[in-house]
């Protein structure tokens, strides 16, 4: 299967229609069956189209989005539902901030080729900034079926918390989609410490989308990538494809037979020694 990681760089974001036309053009060209958009995508498109007025800072703009413009989510999600259906692909639609009861979550919706949501994944670990604006943590990491694969999603800074990948890996995830956003000021190593490291210790594939561009004064810039266990990637680098922050997308073909053969020979998760972890995770009495 072909998979694609996007950055939103070089797309025309001035209107939802132009964005849709450019994104579908890009996806058609890539021939992908599964595409992933980065974190903060709803906010970026909202600000770019004028649906969310930019404030003096990213933090303030983010807060305004939460306080006054969550209705933009309906437009945003409907747009991506249509794109998934039109393209006949699975599409992880980047992130929105959603309100449920009185709680706010940073959430990815993934649509199937019929345009129906096949997974909703909330960010489970939050940064000090996200906590300061009142976001709550998700408490589940489910998978969905994309035959023959099982697929999970890791949202934003969850990539830096290895518990997320382990939970997905132990549930049998074959592919993990990552909607990420890293500040441009950080070098590449922060990114390597995230999904690349998660892949190597769980032996799944990862499709890593990273936000690129200026969002209300905050510059984001990390590279999109398709990652696999080192042993089955060119140069044993762990990267099937890796772009630059300004790259619009990277696409790669997953060799699932090679991954399964690797796991048969070198079953990392079978060599866990959970009896030694009791200090970390005790049974609920």
């Amino acid at each position, binding site marked *: 299967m072909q998979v694609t990681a996007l950055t939103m760089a070089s797309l025309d974001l001035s209107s939802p229609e132009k964005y849709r036309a450019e994104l579908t053009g890009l996806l058609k060209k890539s021939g992908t069956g599964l595409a992933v958009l980065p974190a903060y995508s709803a906010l970026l498109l909202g600000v770019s189209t004028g649906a969310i007025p930019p404030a003096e800072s990213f933090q303030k703009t983010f807060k305004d989005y939460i306080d006054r413009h969550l209705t933009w989510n309906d437009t945003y999600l409907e747009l991506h539902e249509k794109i998934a259906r039109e393209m006949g692909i699975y599409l992880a639609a980047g992130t929105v901030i959603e309100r449920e009861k009185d709680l706010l979550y940073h959430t990815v919706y993934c649509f199937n080729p019929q345009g129906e949501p096949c997974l909703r994944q909330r960010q*489970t*670990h*939050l*940064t*000090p900034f996200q*906590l300061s604006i009142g976001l709550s*943590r*998700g*408490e*589940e*990491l489910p998978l969905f079926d994309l035959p023959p694969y099982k697929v999970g999603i890791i949202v934003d*800074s969850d990539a*830096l*918390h*290895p*518990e997320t990948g*382990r*939970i997905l890996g*132990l*549930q049998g995830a074959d592919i993990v989609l990552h909607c990420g956003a890293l500040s441009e000021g*950080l*070098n590449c*190593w*922060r990114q*390597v*410490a995230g999904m*690349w*490291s998660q892949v*190597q*210790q769980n032996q799944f594939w990862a499709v890593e989308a990273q936000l690129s561009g200026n969002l209300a004064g905050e510059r984001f810039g990390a590279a999109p990538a398709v990652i696999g266990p*080192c*042993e089955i990637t060119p*140069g*044993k*680098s*762990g990267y099937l494809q890796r772009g630059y922050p300004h790259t619009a997308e990277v696409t790669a073909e997953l060799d699932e037979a090679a991954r399964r053969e690797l796991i048969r*020979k*070198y*079953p*990392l998760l079978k*060599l*866990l*020694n*959970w*009896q*030694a*972890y*009791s*200090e*970390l*995770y*005790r*049974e*609920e009495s």
Partner: protein
Amino acid sequence: MALDGFIEKIYRRYMVWKCRPSRVAAHLDKSLPGERKVLLQDGRRKIRVAALQLKLKLLKSPLHFADEMHRQVRKAVDRQARLAVFPEYNSLPLLGMLPGFEKIEEGYRKKAAGSPNNGSKKGSEDENSLVDVFKYMSPAVQPLVDITFSRLAKAYGIYIMAGSYPLAYNGGLFNRSFLYGPGGQLIGSQDKVHLFIDEAKWDLKRGSSFSIYETAIGNLALPVCMDATYFETFRILEHKGAEIALLPIADMQEYNYWLALRGIWPRVQESLLYGVKGALVGTLAGLVFSGRAGIFAPLELTPQQDGVLAEVNTDSDEAITVAELDLDALQELRQNHPWRDTNQALYSRYFPALYRQD
């Protein structure tokens, strides 16, 4: 391979006699300086550490082993290190004490020529033989290691993580690392908790917990090689208060930058610790060992923001590298970290149940 015949028993007694502590101590004492006191800086808790990379060569005598370890410790001391870290399987050179081993080794080498090990190893018969050899040598190796590093630590007034050794206890073979203090005392040990797949096939026994040792230079932990493949190890160490993880490795594959990156480097990013890696390199019986000894830290504590404080520049030769660890800076980072969070509700939902499923 059965090593329980009359000749083997006699030879083992001879090896144990040759490795007896009084003999090794007397030999070392001829070249050691007088006892030194460990030097600690006032104010900020800073510690200069050395990561050693040793090249495999067969040694015919336990005294040669003691001399070789002494030479390595002196290199660390010459660079003002207060802690030196040795590699995994640090007793492999002692296979040279076995009569005829060089010939056996040459045979293996020829057999392996043209088919270098790419992570895969020899047949199970050879592997089982190796386990038998480790068990056979264990009564000689343990006292030799103990007296050598105890003497060296005391003489130079430094801490030494002596590397790890396949040693027999209670009928099983464990891969165990040792830590010695500047008084020459054995501070503690650690059995490897996560086995490499071939070690599992060899029926090595796993450790069942991780220990932390509080010392004057910080809280030290001694996970072994493959333990650094799993984030759980470093999470536990961090929870238990470890500040520096001392990791011996003996990586049985041709060197590749990315393969080598998969161990201690990501672990110190996920769980905030310093990491010091001692590496064994070279070839033995057709097996290639590679690595790069190094000293690692969370990105925020490294000058290039790359997680590396120091790393040797060869993957196949003897080398040493040193760096200074700032334990106060580590504590400050832990208290004001830019992204760390925990989610007990999430963990309770999935752990430990997920680990238990097959």
